[in-house]
């Protein structure tokens, strides 16, 4: 399994220094956004990373693409350790590793027409040799994401949210990447448009063999699109497994309550099911609980949970869980 992994993180850590000032006295505190996160993604598959806001899922994606310098741990891409690689050495990887952002309104430069947004990276990475070739390629990409020729010279504000997300996808696609971090690519879109984008992503994976890290808070969408799923809570990966194993045989109490909180669009099923409603809020990552991060809201918490951070343990078939008292 590890041989086929195109991307691997080992104990990835991303800490931020937060400066606080109170009555003229400054102090620096550490916010542990990502703490010892390890997982691997096989080529051509989709790894869904789910969790609530502030759990560190986006930070994982950004640290992998070296948009942040990791505080600790390793990121291994296709057998090469890229964690401390210089920007110059990393340049060819920039092409291979792309990103699709959540907000199609802020991730496209409002002063550039579509031809420039998609075309500039083509020139930068020398994927085209002249302007005519570049224009042809832009047109081809625009068609692939379902837009038309007369869209090429327009500016981002002339498009709807769904169309803008298509432009963002075309921009990533232009690089003919191998690996794409999709950071909440559909959260800002209406339901009827969401399905259009999901289908495009699935279609391209089939055609080009893309590997996706699909970051989302929407467990229904993640179940639909992913082959493997990881669940994060307060900076830690608490459980990961193949999609049907995770949704059918969850072992972590957090995974269970997260799934039971998802509203299902079926009135009878919604009425019939037993919901586990978590009490309270997610603790502040500036002041996380000792031991297991979830213990303050966990119904299965034992005294040991306050003392020791549980390690991710393989319970068979690549299903890993970090819990002292997992569900049976």
């Amino acid at each position, binding site marked *: 399994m590890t041989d086929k992994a195109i991307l691997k993180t080992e104990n990835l850590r991303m800490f931020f220094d937060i400066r606080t000032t109170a009555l003229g006295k400054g102090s620096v505190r550490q916010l542990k956004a990502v703490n010892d996160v390890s997982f691997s993604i096989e080529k051509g598959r989709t790894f869904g990373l789910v969790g609530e806001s502030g759990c560190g899922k986006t930070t994982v994606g950004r640290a992998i693409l070296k948009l942040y310098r990791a505080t600790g741990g390793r990121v291994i891409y296709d057998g090469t350790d890229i964690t401390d690689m210089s920007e110059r050495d990393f340049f060819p990887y920039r092409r291979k590793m792309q990103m699709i952002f959540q907000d199609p309104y802020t991730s496209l430069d409002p002063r550039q027409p579509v031809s420039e947004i998609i075309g500039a990276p083509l020139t930068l990475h020398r994927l085209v040799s002249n302007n005519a070739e570049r224009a042809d390629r832009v047109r081809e990409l625009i068609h692939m994401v379902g837009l038309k020729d007369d869209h090429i010279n327009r500016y981002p504000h002339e498009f709807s949210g769904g169309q803008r997300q298509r432009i963002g996808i075309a921009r990533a696609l232009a690089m003919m990447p191998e690996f794409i971090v999709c950071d909440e690519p559909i959260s800002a879109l209406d339901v009827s448009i969401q399905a259009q984008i999901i289908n495009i992503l699935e279609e391209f994976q089939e055609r080009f063999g893309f590997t996706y890290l699909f970051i989302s808070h929407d467990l*229904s969408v993640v179940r639909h699109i992913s082959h493997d799923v990881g669940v994060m809570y307060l900076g830690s990966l608490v459980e990961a497994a193949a999609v049907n194993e995770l949704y059918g045989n969850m072992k972590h109490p957090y995974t269970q309550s997260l799934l039971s909180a998802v509203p299902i669009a079926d009135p009878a099923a919604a009425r019939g099911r037993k919901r586990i409603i978590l009490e309270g809020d997610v603790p502040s990552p500036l002041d996380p609980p000792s031991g297991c991060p979830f213990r303050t809201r966990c119904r299965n918490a034992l005294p040991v949970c306050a003392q020791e951070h549980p390690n991710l343990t393989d319970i068979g078939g690549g299903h890993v869980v970090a819990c002292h008292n997992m569900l049976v």
Partner: protein
Amino acid sequence: MSGHILEIQNLRTDFSIAGGIVRAVRGIDLFVDRGEFLGVVGESGCGKSVTMLSVMRLLSENATVRADRLAFDGRDLLRLDHKKMRRMLGDEIGMIFQDPMTSLDPLYTIGNQIMEPLKIHRKMSGHEARKRAVEMLDLVGIPSPEQRLKQYPHEFSGGMRQRVMIAIAMSCNPKLLIADEPTTALDVTIQAQILELMKDMQEKFSAATLLITHDLGVIASTCSRVVVMYGGLIMESGDVEDIFYRPAHPYTIGLLSSISDAADTGKKKLSPIPGSPPDLMNPPRGCPFTARCDFAMRICAASRPALAETVPGSGHGVACWLRDTRAKLDGTGVTAR
């Protein structure tokens, strides 16, 4: 007296903006029964929020609201002056909005904000109002309410702020609670808490609740009746079972088949609705869904279908020419899009 707490007939709301007129709501009929939990669902820009803001007269100056009838609890809202309307809001009609950070005033304590409507509408003394505020905070599940009363909104988490909003909305024991996307800004586990609380409050206070949302999952787990809106019009309405198990409008069917299901193990391909919603600056003459509908006929683009019951007396209404026998009789067959 009818069982309707709120009755809307032929509501039309326009906004004049720099480039022209946006026809946000284009003639809708809607009612809310006493004590019922009604969901209004639709995508952004379909007019679901504007409908409720029109009823409450909370729209900006550039809005024009017209209706044949707007009645709350038997009283004609069209004839009510501004002052009387203000007296009704927050008293008989409670409101919860999407973003609890912007709907609470950051400069006043939570206590102040819960006590204000009690003092204004119920003429309570400071002491009485404080007692009631503590009671309300306790009821919505905020621990140590006496201390929390003295705190400001920024000291509360998103879920807690929404609980405070619910406490304010319910404090005067309203007959109707209007909740506009109350859980959209919240995480799923917190959303589950708030929906549970809203159902609980509805039982305790037996207030009619009108929940506006874009999330069909939220509708399925809370509402008993549903109204589906699109392009400023009602496409379909009926019992929650009718809408989810026997949807009759192509738009409702399209919405339901474009969502992925957390309980679904198979990898069925999603069937999205092609295209995007109509531009309401220049709304289509006929059914607003025509351009995206797989079953569109010539008449669909030419004239707007009326909302009619699928089976008389069922309460399941659909606005679609496919249901209208006249559409077939005048020789306009199904044409390709």
